[in-house]
């Protein structure tokens, strides 16, 4: 039967059925690493391994030959870690802001299925993964077996979240706006920077009401801006509409606002990411009168992502990340730092 297999394989090569392989990328911490949900371009929600800035990405690449016993000739096997921005109107051009490569095998041949280890140490992941209406920012591993005619490759997408800590300065937003002699209101929001699971607490105070208001609502608007200079394009999307008043207010009345953000799908505010795009959020206060006329005031808020990992390990991560820039590894110092903070 050995000879029989040999004949088949020779026949297959003769007819162009060359050897091929399946590639599989497996992370070393696949069992323990958390996954995060991320919406793809077509709206589907999938789960991906979650990484933060500074974390090491390590694992194994399994190259499994399709036809056992036959050699796989190749021009090199490598794995890349890529962070890139893709603008939908310019799909051909990928803007790579992170591009790391590790060679796994020099040009040669594989006689049997093989597994290669890889490690990208303390990888910089400066931006959060984002899939939007006109632009996508993604991180992925790509393992490639280069061949003369056609490469074999496999990609593994990961999701990156950027974390912030409580901002030192977080002033409230308070403003008096209106139409001269017609409608004057004072609106107040308790903060200007909110984390994604925060609550917007505010109030609308009526100073002058000479129109017949029927209804008031707060909308959350997400604005995705792509392009630069004369080619700037804004895509506005109303994420939420939240009624805060039904009926006619009079002078001196104060209407409270309490809006829980955790119920809405939002990302952190992203400003001028790699000079390619921005994602900003606005609160739009809308008053509607008896004749359906709309009066509105838009105000930007900053959204940020709060980490839910324990403070001690957060500072450990930060210490690792800071080592990249300081150039010297000083584990003693960073360890004692993290111990101190853990005790406080």
């Amino acid at each position, binding site marked *: 039967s050995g000879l029989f297999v040999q004949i088949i394989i020779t026949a297959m090569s003769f007819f162009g059925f060359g050897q091929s392989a399946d590639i599989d990328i497996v992370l070393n911490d696949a069992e323990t690493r958390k996954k995060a949900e991320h919406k793809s371009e077509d709206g589907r929600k999938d789960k991906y391994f979650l990484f933060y800035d500074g974390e090491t990405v390590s694992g194994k690449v399994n190259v499994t030959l399709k036809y056992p016993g036959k050699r796989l000739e190749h021009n090199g096997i490598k794995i890349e870690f890529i962070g890139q921005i893709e603008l939908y109107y310019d799909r051909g051009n990928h803007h790579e802001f992170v591009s790391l490569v590790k060679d796994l095998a020099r040009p040669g041949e594989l006689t049997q299925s093989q597994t290669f280890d890889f490690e990208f140490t303390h990888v910089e992941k400066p931006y959060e993964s984002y899939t939007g209406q006109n632009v996508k920012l993604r991180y992925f591993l790509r393992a490639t077996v280069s061949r003369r005619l056609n490469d074999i490759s496999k990609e593994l997408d990961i999701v990156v979240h950027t974390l912030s800590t409580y901002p030192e300065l977080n002033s409230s937003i308070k403003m008096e706006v209106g139409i001269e002699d017609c409608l004057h209101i004072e609106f107040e929001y308790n903060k200007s920077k909110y984390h994604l699971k925060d609550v917007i607490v505010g109030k609308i105070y009526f100073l*002058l009401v000479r129109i*017949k208001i029927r209804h008031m609502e707060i909308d959350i608007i997400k604005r995705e801006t792509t392009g630069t200079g004369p080619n700037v394009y804004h895509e506005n999307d109303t994420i939420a509409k939240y009624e805060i008043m039904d009926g006619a207010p009079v002078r001196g*009345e104060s209407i409270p606002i309490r809006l829980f953000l955790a119920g809405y799908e939002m990302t952190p505010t992203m400003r001028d990411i790699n000079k390619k795009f921005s994602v900003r959020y606005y609160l739009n206060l809308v008053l509607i009168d008896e004749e359906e006329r709309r009066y509105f005031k838009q105000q930007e808020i900053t959204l940020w992502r709060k980490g839910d990992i324990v403070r001690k390990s957060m500072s450990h991560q930060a210490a690792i990340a800071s080592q990249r820039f300081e150039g010297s590894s000083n584990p003693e110092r960073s360890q004692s730092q993290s111990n101190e903070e853990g005790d406080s």
Partner: protein
Amino acid sequence: MTESAVADTRRLNSKPQDLTDAYGPPSNFLEIDVYDPQIIGVGRSRYTTYEVRMRTNLPIFKLKDSCVRRRYSDFEWLKNELERDSKIVVPPLPGKALKRQLPFRGDEGLFEESFIEERRSGLEQFINRIAGHPLAQNERCLHMFLQEESIDRNYIPGKNILQASFI
């Protein structure tokens, strides 16, 4: 700065409302009635006029209670002035009913009771919608229409606000 695990959702402090404000008349009182249709003239030159009565406490109107007589073409004039001079989207008037002006109809044509009522109601809706619009309230033509005895078609169009007011 440490923050608690549960967000503080207490209301922001606000001034207690003055009871006169709470229970007093609202500052946005504005009501316009279009009623009492009267047929003026004889024969083929007859036309209908309506009483237009406005009651308001808005400071922008000079008279808090005014009463004038207007006909359909006056409403058309107002609509045209506003469309030309202001940035507002002017609501539609009830129809011109040209067919009703043709002879040999089985009914009273323009002076049919049901038609007059339909028109009266449409004109009332129209004028209430316009008069409540902050931008329309700035126009000379609206104030002339509502509060002056007759419309001077040779008037100088303009805004009612003081042009020279600087803040």
